[in-house]
């Protein structure tokens, strides 16, 4: 099976063969022998040669978040030939600002129709006793601003839509 893997912009073609914990991989043609076993729910132990790695794996819509001691790596995967795993990430069209966590809107700093610059504060959301200012991901015209002060929002709730402004 062949995948296109992508890690922070770098793309790698990965070929995987094998079964029952023993796998032969090629990363951009470089061979890698990997012996895998589960290390309890969420954790995986890898032996690559004699080198031992224990890591956590979190499923993401486009791949996995691989958690190492003190750091993590997001790996996006797509079947080979279906285009880059990064496809769709740079789509044009409106940018959506969503709530990163559940909380309460304490202030709305801009209104629909306004032109905003990248990094401009749009709303202040209170969660876990702290106020967090959420900023415009890019410049443009605010097409939608569907929240009110005092409103409770769930994680993922739409807070603002920014059009291209042209």
């Amino acid at each position: 099976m062949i995948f296109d893997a992508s890690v922070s912009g770098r793309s790698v073609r990965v070929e995987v063969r094998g079964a029952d914990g023993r796998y032969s991989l090629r990363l951009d043609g470089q061979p890698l022998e990997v012996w895998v076993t589960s290390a309890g729910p969420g954790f995986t132990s890898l032996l690559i040669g004699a080198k031992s790695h224990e890591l956590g794996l979190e499923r993401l819509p486009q791949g996995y978040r691989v958690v190492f001691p003190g750091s993590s790596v997001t790996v996006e995967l797509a079947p080979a030939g279906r285009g880059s795993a990064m496809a769709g990430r740079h789509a044009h069209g409106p940018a959506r600002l969503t709530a990163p966590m559940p909380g309460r809107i304490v202030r709305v700093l801009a209104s629909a129709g306004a032109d905003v610059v990248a990094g401009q504060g749009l709303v202040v959301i209170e969660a876990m006793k702290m106020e967090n200012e959420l900023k415009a991901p890019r410049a443009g015209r605010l097409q939608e601003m569907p929240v009110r002060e005092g409103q409770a929002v769930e994680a993922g709730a739409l807070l603002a839509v920014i059009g291209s402004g042209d």
Partner: protein
Amino acid sequence: MTRRRFSKLLVANRGEIAVRVIRACREMGIASVAVFSEADRAALHVRLADEALAVGPAPARESYLRIDRVLEAAKASGAEAIHPGYGFLAENASFARSCEEAGIVFIGPRSETIALLGEKTSARREALLAGLPVVPGTLEKIADEALLVSEAEKIGYPVMLKAAAGGGGKGLRLVATPGALLGALARARSEAQGAFGDDSVYLEKAIVGARHIEIQVLADAHGHAVHLFERECSIQRRHQKLIEESPSPFVTEELRERLGALALALVRRVSYVNAGTLEFLVDAERRAYFLEMNTRLQVEHPVTEMVTGLDLVKLQIRIAEGEELPLRQADLAQRGHAIECRVYAEDPDQGFLPSPGRITALRTPGGPGVRDDSGVYDGFEVPTHYDPLVSKLVVWAGSRTDAIARMRRAVAEYKLLGIRTTLPFFERVLRHPAFEAGDFDTSFVGTLLAEAPASFAPVDVAIAAAAISRFEERRRSRARGVAPAASGWRAAARREAHTARIGTRG
């Protein structure tokens, strides 16, 4: 003061500190009573306590901050004493007074001491009278905006806006220029109102390039008082402490003795009883300025416990029972070095945004010299309503160098999936040459975050692990006869709703 022994104690808190107090009770043979909100039925403190009583809905002001309900729970359970932990009602003088009036022992200082020192402007007055140097600023809280502007001019920028009832970095704002003052004021007031139910603020000159150093004190009701040396708390972000240690690599023996003597001067002036902490800013010339006194147990008390060999919670309980302190200043010494890292449910890659949610997998470190004071467990859902502190990872070793190495080892062993935490950030701090050299002040975190993070993760290993997992996933779904369409892979995405990101990347 009559001596007595408590047989049952109520813990008016939640999270790791409630667990900490319950553990002390268990070791002392005292029955523990937990209180909990509707959001905390499954919380660890409820599971560990001998008894537990519901005190109201999820928002703290309707449960943990309800003096009437907490007191009712104490009476209903027959608890003779209440330990308030930190935060919530811990520095609420009217709560302490209500306990006194109800004949329940409040484990902390007298209510009038809390009122005197908890209100920061009167605390500054008392400190001046006790001979402590203070940061230049307004001695009174200021309601009038025009007066605030002129006072700020008088003190000179940068200035610090502080909540009069504050603590824990809430309602605190650094203001660099006159133009930013009123905007910062609105935020400080609104945060202070939400956190403490009191929106009054005062002004102080911001001491730039300073260290945050605090002195732990203990005093009994018989007139004995000792200090338990310093804690270094300069690794903080927006006034929220992230790493504490004892001893401080910056504090000389001369400064340690000077700060200890200043701390005890205030303790004696106000006839302080029980555990407390005096916070100081110390500038590069080792000039010390008293900031405030916290009339409660501190979050970071474990580092003091590790280097002194004392159990501060047990001593608090014994003092409240009317016991004399079992030791004098000459009996005390700092032995070795201790460091604490506060593991918060915050995402350091997203500007430390809160990251509540379910912990899907958890491995905590062990081995020599490691202590994990945690309030969570594998499968626990970290609620959105409270402080994001998940656990305090503490290590002890013979020297600072060995303690840093041990903490790096412990952070590497600490594995937590499902939510984001500050653990990766600690890895960065602990590897930083300035931290290793002990050469840092309160601006360290800001400077560190401005540097590009070096990545130590083996990317090829990550790609191999991810590709093998996807390979096995597709094979399993084929074996079950499920079409391995892209949409099928997204089934797991339901669980990932909490990983929503702000807007698009680009």
